[in-house]
């Protein structure tokens, strides 16, 4: 038996509780940490954040869960209804339609914004200096509030002669294509998706671009020296190595799309004929215009569950990557 083999066997035979194993080392480190008083300091530093978190997230969450069990209509006295709101939601055709719209909306806006951001970031990665200005401009759109985005696109989609899109079409001799974009149930949702994706492309662009900048220059230089074309370098080196950034961008944009409200409110107010009403908008309508707080809270929880279903696996995976 060689010395190397002996070492491996020696490690393998050691008990997990042995101080020499990883678990033992962690215990030792923890004991030393505690002794030094670091844990107390750490918890002390965490207190403000935990208090804020409890006040702004945990308390409203439990309040929302509690509200969802009540039948509240305006200022009338609330009645306890148990799971009644959830059962009513399951039967509510308007809510079912909102769920379908939300899926379509979330899928399309995420794919479009992240897809565009990924594509642009890959192009930018090939010529970082020359593409600084476009990157800044595209990212600037992400900094614009959703409501302002809505008003910008309202001006673009206006049905009259003042609408930018129809004016451009007319100027190009394509006046026949001019259309009341936001008033047609067949086009309204797609127009919203484009408007929202436009504003959301900046973040994936920056995240993925940052991932491409982390790729070692020597790898790319080596590929060039070996005679690889730019397209091949992008396809076989930059694109695969940008995937960590892509995953983060997908996660963030997916959650953002699920919760989107302002752009929809400004552009269509959920119409025409509720064709652009997502769960987020449904929740707003029920809670704040109808003041059916219990019903709205139940819809909020459904949305929260959808967010958690997406978030938890992504967070677990991200945590593993960090470790």
């Amino acid at each position, binding site marked *: 038996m060689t010395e190397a083999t002996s070492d491996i066997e020696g490690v393998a035979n050691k008990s997990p509780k042995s101080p020499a194993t990883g678990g033992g080392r962690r215990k030792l480190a923890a004991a030393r940490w505690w002794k030094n008083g670091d844990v107390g300091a750490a918890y002390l530093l965490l207190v403000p954040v935990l208090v804020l978190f409890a006040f702004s997230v945990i308390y409203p969450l439990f309040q929302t869960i509690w509200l969802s069990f009540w039948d509240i*209509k*305006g*200022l*009338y*006295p609330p009645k306890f209804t148990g799971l009644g709101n959830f059962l009513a939601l399951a039967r509510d055709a308007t809510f079912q339609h909102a769920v379908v719209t939300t899926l379509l909306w979330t899928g399309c806006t995420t794919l479009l914004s992240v897809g565009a951001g990924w594509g642009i970031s890959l192009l930018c990665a090939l010529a970082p200096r020359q593409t600084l200005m476009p990157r800044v401009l595209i990212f600037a759109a992400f900094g614009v509030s959703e409501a302002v985005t809505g008003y910008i696109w309202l001006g673009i*989609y*206006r*049905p*009259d*002669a*003042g609408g930018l899109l129809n004016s451009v079409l007319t100027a190009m001799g394509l006046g026949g294509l001019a*259309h*009341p*974009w*936001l*008033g*047609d*149930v067949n086009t309204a949702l797609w127009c919203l998706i484009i408007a929202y994706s436009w504003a959301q492309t900046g973040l994936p662009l920056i995240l993925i671009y940052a991932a491409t900048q982390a790729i070692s220059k020597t790898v790319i230089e080596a590929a060039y020296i070996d005679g690889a074309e730019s397209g091949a370098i992008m396809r076989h080196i930059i694109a695969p190595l940008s995937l960590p950034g892509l995953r983060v961008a997908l996660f963030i944009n997916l959650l953002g799309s699920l919760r989107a409200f302002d752009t929809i409110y400004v552009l*269509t*107010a959920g*119409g*025409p*004929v*509720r064709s652009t009403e997502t769960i987020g908008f449904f929740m707003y*309508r029920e809670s*704040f*215009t*109808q*003041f*059916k707080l219990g019903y709205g809270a139940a819809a909020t929880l459904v949305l929260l569950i959808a967010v958690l279903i997406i978030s938890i696996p992504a967070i677990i995976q991200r945590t593993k990557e960090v470790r």
Partner: protein
Amino acid sequence: MKSHAIARRRATIAAGRVGLIALAALAFSAPARAAAADVSGDLVLLDWAAGSEEDMLKALEAGFMKAYPNVTFKEINLTTQGDQRGAIRAALQAGQKADIFINTWPAFRKELVDAGMLKDLTPLWTGAGIGDNLSSSWKDLGSIDGKLYGITYTFGDRSAMFYTTATMKKAGITAQPKTWDEFVANFKKLNDVKVNPIAIGAKVWSHTEWFESIYEHLNGVDMAAKLTSHQIPWTDPSVKNTLKKYAELIKAGCCGDANTMLAMDWDNASDAVLKAGTYGYQMIGMWNNDRAQSTDGLKQGDDYFITQFPAMGAGHDDVASVDTKEFSEFANAANPAAADAFLAWIDTKDAADIVAQHGLASPSTKVDGSLYGPVIKYSVDAVANAKVQFVMGDLLPGDLVDEYRVQLQKFLQDPSDATIDAVTQDLEAKAASSY
């Protein structure tokens, strides 16, 4: 001599009368001043008014504080977008304490009354002589089950159509139509000069205005009251006939295509009529009068005017749809004396003139009508001679009003008999669970 004696006696009597009047005035004003002095402290208003209405409110507050110098107004301001009821409910549920608030939704008033939050103002009406300034029809509009909960201080004609004189001149329309047939006949004149006759902003709610005015003119205010309180179903022939009449309007080329209507909000429709001149008429509330002047820079009477909804000849042409704004007092008001004094003052001549000076209509019988601009004067005269019906949408419960707007959007997309049947059935299904 005799004539001198008579003259002296007359002069003595006249002087005596003047003295009596002066004494009476003194006797009257002394307790009034004392009463005004007794009313003191902070008067808290839950305020969601904005723009020129907020300016008017400030002027009213100043006017009241002049009459009651020991009272100081305090405001809880709600900055909201869209339907303000949500913000008011949230403020109340969050424990905000106010003495009075502005309301414009009868259905909301009922909600507050059912929750025991509003004070019955019937004794105040009688005790403070509010009836001297307001006709009983305004009392009826502010009442629920015979008890008064809201004192109206301004109102707007909602059966009036705005138009510009330039557009009418271009179309060769020299006199505004008085009857439905004349109105529809004018569509051709407007279409011939590439103007759509009516701008309907159906993005959210303003398409319901047409349904309501047609309904009231075909069926009368009593039927409208029954429909809004669900004493008759939405599948009633009166509703279907109204939608068929509305469909006639659309099929006659009134309003451009349905998708354009659904893409426009009421303010886009206003721009299309008053600014762009691409549409002929818009039926909308009197706040558009202020907008036309402040936003579009138009001169009322010269650049634009209004005309009342045309007569339909169904025996109910003496109706007008109105909206109102009223003050209500909270049952738990911290300063009920000041609140009562303000509600009793709000329709006096002083207050009514402030309302009129700010370009709004006052329901007070004491208002100086010469303060009105031509548009408001026309609308006040139209309403004064009509049986009034509150905007039907504002009388419906929250659940139903939303469905009502959406179902009427569906109707605009396809105004066929089949859609009318489907829409009325869906409305009735919602109404069945909303009351």
